[in-house]
């Protein structure tokens, strides 16, 4: 069964600029795994090398933070929406840039 996953602006380069994608799975973990297998470039942005969800990426099932609902084991229903909400900071290269000179 498919749920809608909202992709935030900073991660849209890795989903062909789509702001939402339909992904199937029975719990949050499966949905996220399915998401990164269809959009492999997302993987390093969402998961650490050990496969743990990164601490600066918050995942919400509907309006609830999954950290408080059973994390990746939280079951999903077809009407649910999953939101990836990373921390964001401004739009100026000087402060938000990956390297000091790009």
């Amino acid at each position: 069964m498919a749920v809608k996953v909202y992709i935030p602006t900073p991660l849209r380069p890795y989903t062909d600029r789509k702001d939402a994608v339909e992904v199937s799975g029975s719990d949050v973990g499966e949905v996220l795994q399915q998401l990164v297998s269809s959009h492999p470039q997302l993987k390093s942005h969402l998961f650490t090398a050990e496969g743990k969800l990164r601490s600066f990426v918050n995942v919400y099932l509907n309006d609830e933070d999954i950290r408080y609902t059973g994390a990746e084991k939280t079951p999903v229903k077809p009407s649910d929406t999953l939101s990836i909400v990373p921390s964001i900071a401004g739009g100026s290269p000087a402060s938000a840039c990956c390297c000091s000179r790009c």
Partner: protein
Amino acid sequence: MATTAEPVSVNLSNDEIMRYSRHLIIPEVGIEGQRKLKAARVLMIGAGGLGAPVALYLAAAGVGTLGVVDYDTVDFTNLQRQVIHGTGDVGRLKLESARNTITEINPNVKVVGYAEKLTSENALQIFKDYDLVVDGTDNFPTRYLVNDACVLTGIPNVYASIFRFEGQASVLALPDGPCYRCWYPEPPPPGLVPSCAEGGVLGVLPGIMGTLQAMETIKLILGIGQPLKNRVMLFDALQMKFRELKLRKNPDCPVCGTHPTIKHLIDYQEFCGMRAVEEAQPVPEIAGMKQITALELKDEIDAGKPLVIVDVREPNEYQICRIPNSILIPLGELPKRAHELSPEQDIVVHCKMGGRSAQALDYLQKSGFKKVRNLEGGILAWSDEVDPSVPKY
């Protein structure tokens, strides 16, 4: 906080009563509310994109004391969104430019300026004179510093941040409410923060998010309505949608939890992994990287040397300016388009400032390209040293 029902000793002049009449006739504000606004002391961190509308509206609303922390000067790239500054302010301290505009809007407002960087050393000293903090910072070290200083001093933090077409806002560090660390325990490492090729912000967006901050600030001062507490508002301008998410106080939060481990301000540059970045080589260190300066490149072009100039920026950047006869292969497309280049060619890669092109050089060298050089300082150096008609952005 001076936001409760304690009697407010300030009085309004007849001129002020006239000025604020549209507030005074709202029962939820009235004379008492307007006095609370006049007595209120609000500290704004940053007089940039978010700080501009916050300052304009708080000044117009009659907030008595506005502290502004900003050591930056106005430049031309600010004017697209930082509406408190004008063209004639370019080169001035943002703080002084903001002070002028605020005073022009409402001379009753006392502006207290701090032309310094907010640091772990000065934050608590500055914060102690204020009732509320409005966080308009655009970087993670200051974001965490403001958060921790608000929690430690018990001052609420009216927070917003923006990226391209998207914004987030919340009121943090209220009594029994969550803080930024409850939400995001750690900042992203610098390498995973979007690069300048992916940055930018539509100028109206900070206007929308900043006015939300101004509204929440005024509600807190007046003690009316429901503050944006225990929830965060997400705004997507392209969809024109607001979405509300729950935000919970984390009992294990290192700064506001039941057993805090952070009891005084820390080194936020280090916490955000910035120390290593700042001290690193200006260009990512790449084995065997050969550089070429803009002037040397110009000489080689003029001497007729066969060169392939590869611009690895994004197409929208290429439309702004380009080096003559360069070909555009955005960094992200390089792996699938490298076959358009020949390993025997003399190649010069460039981007805006030299960072992305260093990555391109690294990729090409590892793919067997032997004669690749990086244009030091990118197209900005070309504009500075060779052709000033090339616009900078």
